[in-house]
């Protein structure tokens, strides 16, 4: 199960998909404009996050995510819903 905080997990995933170094990635960064992920790559990132954390996230919800922080909040929401 999860041992790393969600923030850390997503930062590592972004670093896999882009040349950005983990230390440079901030929660307010926009996936597209600041991190250079196009829409397909952004969906791939959210898909990887859902896969790793075993979350059932509908595609519509993922499509509304534009920043790193929103992705983290999305994952938290689904974890909380699962725990409830």
């Amino acid at each position: 199960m999860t041992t790393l905080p969600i923030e850390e997990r997503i930062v590592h995933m972004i670093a896999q998909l882009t040349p950005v170094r983990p230390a440079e990635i901030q929660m307010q960064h926009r996936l597209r404009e600041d991190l250079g992920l196009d829409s397909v790559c952004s969906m791939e990132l959210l898909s990887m996050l859902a896969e790793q954390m075993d979350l059932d996230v509908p595609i519509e919800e993922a499509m509304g995510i534009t920043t790193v922080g929103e992705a983290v909040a999305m994952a938290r929401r689904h974890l909380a819903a699962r725990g409830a």
Partner: protein
Amino acid sequence: MTSALATLGRTAEESELLASLAAGIERLARAEIRPLRIDRERRIPTAVLSALAEMGLFGLSIPEAYGGSGLSMQGVCAAVATLARFDRSVATTVGLQLGLGTRGLVAFGAEELKGALLPELAAGRAIAAFAATEAGAGSDLSAIRTTAVEEPPGGLRVEGSKIYVTNGALASVFTVLASTPGLGGARRGHSLIVLRRSDPGVSTAGEEEKLGLRGSSTTGLQMDDARVPLGRVLGTPGRGMDHAAHVLAWGRTAMSAGCVGAARAALELTSAHVATRRQFGRPLAAFEVVRAQLADAAAIAFAMEALVRATCELEGRPEELAMRSIAAKVFCSEGDWEICDLAVQLHGGAGFIEDTGVALLLRDARITRIFEGANDVLLAAHGGFAAASPPVRAPLDAPAADALAASIAALRAHLRDRFGVRLMAQQRQLHRLGRLAVLSEAADAAVRRAAAEDTAGARALAAHWVEMARRRAAPLLEEIEPIEAIDAALRSAP
């Protein structure tokens, strides 16, 4: 048999110009364009390039205000299809100028830059190229390393190297996709930048030796501490990927039109051959298997042309155009290959001999499945679009095409329910969704074309293609083989 695409413009005036261009191109081709010689000598004769420029072909897509003809995307495609009937290298050289080469400048260039460059380009005195691919960045453009940084006051310094630049040796104007960190406030943004051959630090490398399209120039582009004014950035700084998507949509559509023209040429040569070549006491055309193969090829060619037209109808609707141009590119490049391969096969041993001309058609067709986005990458992306935002489709008055679309929609809904957002990482699922979407889009386009043309021939070709699409879709609608089984086979491979 002249393809309807060759003379079909968006307006009556455009159709008239296209008809006269088609006649001019045909005259020039018969008199001066020698495909086998172009292939052998690996260059298009200067006299042919001059004649094409004289006819205004290099300026067809450039607005009239800058000396061009201001044709619509449909008009540009018509001209490219006509050229490709005669020679693919010529069609690629001109098509590149009309699409990828000048589209960024026309759509996003500042007035001063357009005024300085477009008149020369329209007259064919200057040739344009588009440089995106790098050694480490093919289909994945986000990996490009060419970088342009601001050099106050008002300058840019560009560093990097591009490969596989079509028109490289001929071009004096290059639209380059570069990483532009910080420009326009986008931390990791990209921008399209216009470079001129005369700019300090800009140079091209030698010609590549290629499998096909040997008359079309392909070189590298080197930027060593190149300095240009900031005004060379096209459109919004940092939005280069979005602008490139627009330019690529034009490029893919023009390339698809080239596939239509070449496939037509292959079909014409093959129809003539099977009518006269006799074996076992009968012409080849009398054999049932040959007739079935030719009918399939004719139906594919009909659908290819229909899909190019359907793509052109989306000019001015960038997001839909981007998606549809992917479908057209994949379908037309595969259709071109399939038809040219059949042409070689039905020519028998003669098809393998260069003098027949069909071997050249096959070699020239091969790259179209790779450049402007490798088809497998595009299919997965197309499937991703289809999965994330399913296209709205109004039912057509064609039960077979509607049933095909409905079965694909049902699969898409099933996969979205099963995987949620995780579907976007299921590459083989996206790939098959993409392929199914392409089949359905081509079926719809063929049905709509038949309805518009309203002839028995068009209806028969459309009906045959829809039936073929249904049969080709059937195995893709089945559950895919588990990845574990595939990996097990892969591990056992020698």
